[in-house]
């Protein structure tokens, strides 16, 4: 059977033609080749059309309505951007490679990987990450087919755009490092997961814990009154310091020794007197409960006139979430800070601001970045804990002064 097939194929290619003239063969072959190429190109073109993209339900139901709300769908100049303008590479090799990658997407559509809106929302961060990686690697080449720095008149841009865009042009930066979510809703960063945290988790599971030692939380953790986790009484934040009391199975009793403002429920607990570095947030129901919370001393903050109380509580939390040193946490935060916050301006020195100023500044900026919620919290803690309140070389350092000024044209 196979041998037969082999012979047929061999004959087809090797037996010389006896009846059909050479010219006819060449012409026929040429015409056939031309038709085949034409057909191939038509197919390539057809599979780059918007209609083709939208023939899959997951694309039509999720991405189209989002795109339709943006300036790339309809604008005053009437230039419409199609899915393929942004998503299909324009040179042959990369385009073909991309089309082959689509085999995975066809398979996904068939088995319904993102068959519903919920599934899509859950999975889209993975997809978005791929596109971000691609667009960073090629310097957002697809965007720049339509708008490139060399053709931009920065003077007619909105004032808000000018500083950032001039600087981007100077460094010939990839558009996507600042313009994420330009065509679709951004993925829900809450569900996003910074893979760097995985190393912390494995470090924590190997951490040798001793009663009486001081440890730092690597992840936000729920707090309970008892090891059976019957009553949740609050949340311990990343980087918070606790004192180990005892371990029971996979639960640990720890002592919190923190500060709070003596007003309202007093549920937010800070790591130091006078500094708004949140360490724990207690439930309203227990934050004034004398059985749980012991007030050790009180002190007035002269700046705000508020009374601060040093408070102590013994609580239960899940094991394997503590490290003896906060340094591994800060090093993750540091790298996230320097990569995310240096795209528009040099990242300000940590010690250029004090711990109570950082939250406001950071909150105004974090929206420009793609940090997920957990990472953002850690980075803010990092900045506060390395702010001028903690640094001997605070202010005075000339290098820090220029940090933001250089962002101006």
């Amino acid at each position: 059977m196979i041998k037969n097939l082999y012979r047929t194929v061999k004959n087809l290619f090797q037996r010389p033609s006896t009846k059909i003239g050479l010219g006819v063969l060449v012409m026929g072959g040429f015409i056939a080749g031309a038709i085949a190429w034409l057909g191939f190109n038509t197919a390539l073109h057809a599979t780059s059309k918007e209609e083709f993209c939208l023939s899959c339900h997951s694309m039509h139901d999720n991405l189209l309505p989002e795109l339709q709300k943006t300036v790339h769908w309809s604008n005053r100049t009437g230039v419409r951007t199609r899915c393929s303008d942004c998503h299909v590479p324009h040179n042959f090799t990369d385009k073909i490679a991309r089309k082959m990658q689509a085999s995975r997407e066809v398979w996904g559509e068939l088995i319904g990987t993102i068959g519903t809106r919920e599934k899509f929302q859950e999975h889209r961060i993975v997809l978005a990450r791929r596109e971000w990686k691609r667009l960073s690697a090629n310097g957002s080449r697809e965007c720049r087919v339509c708008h490139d720095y060399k053709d931009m008149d920065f003077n007619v841009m909105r004032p808000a755009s000018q500083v950032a865009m001039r600087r981007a042009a100077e460094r010939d930066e990839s558009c996507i490092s600042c313009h994420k979510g330009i065509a679709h809703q951004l993925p829900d960063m809450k569900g996003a997961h910074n893979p760097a945290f995985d190393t912390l988790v494995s470090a924590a599971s190997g951490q040798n814990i001793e009663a009486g030692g001081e440890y730092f939380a690597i992840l936000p953790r729920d707090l309970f009154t008892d090891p059976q986790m019957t009553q949740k009484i609050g949340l311990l934040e990343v980087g918070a310091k606790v004192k180990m009391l005892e371990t029971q199975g996979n639960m640990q009793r720890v002592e919190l020794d923190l500060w709070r403002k003596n007003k309202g429920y007093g549920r937010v607990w800070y790591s130091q007197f006078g500094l708004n570095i949140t360490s724990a947030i207690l439930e309203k129901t227990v934050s004034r409960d004398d059985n749980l919370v012991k007030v050790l001393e009180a002190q007035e903050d002269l700046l705000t006139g508020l009374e601060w109380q040093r408070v102590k509580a013994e609580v239960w939390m899940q094991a394997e979430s503590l490290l003896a040193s906060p340094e591994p946490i800060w090093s993750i935060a540091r790298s996230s800070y320097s990569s995310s916050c240096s795209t528009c301006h040099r990242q300000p020195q940590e010690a250029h601001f004090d711990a109570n100023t950082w939250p406001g500044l950071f909150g105004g900026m974090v929206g420009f970045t793609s940090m997920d919620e957990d990472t953002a919290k850690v980075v803010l803690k990092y900045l506060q804990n390395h702010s001028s309140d903690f640094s001997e070389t605070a202010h005075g350092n000339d290098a820090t002064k220029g940090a933001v000024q250089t962002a101006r044209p």
Partner: protein
Amino acid sequence: MKTSMNTTSEMTTGNRKEWLSFLLLAFIVLPTVMVGAIAIYGFAVWGLQILVFGPPS
């Protein structure tokens, strides 16, 4: 070869067979091989992008 083409009937069958082969080669085999080769090329580039090159620049 020569002897088999003595009669007209054999000539027409030989003729027909040859045309059939030609059409098969030109309009079925050629496009298939072309699309196949490009697909293999595409998959190869994709594979290399995953393993070696990273995303295209």
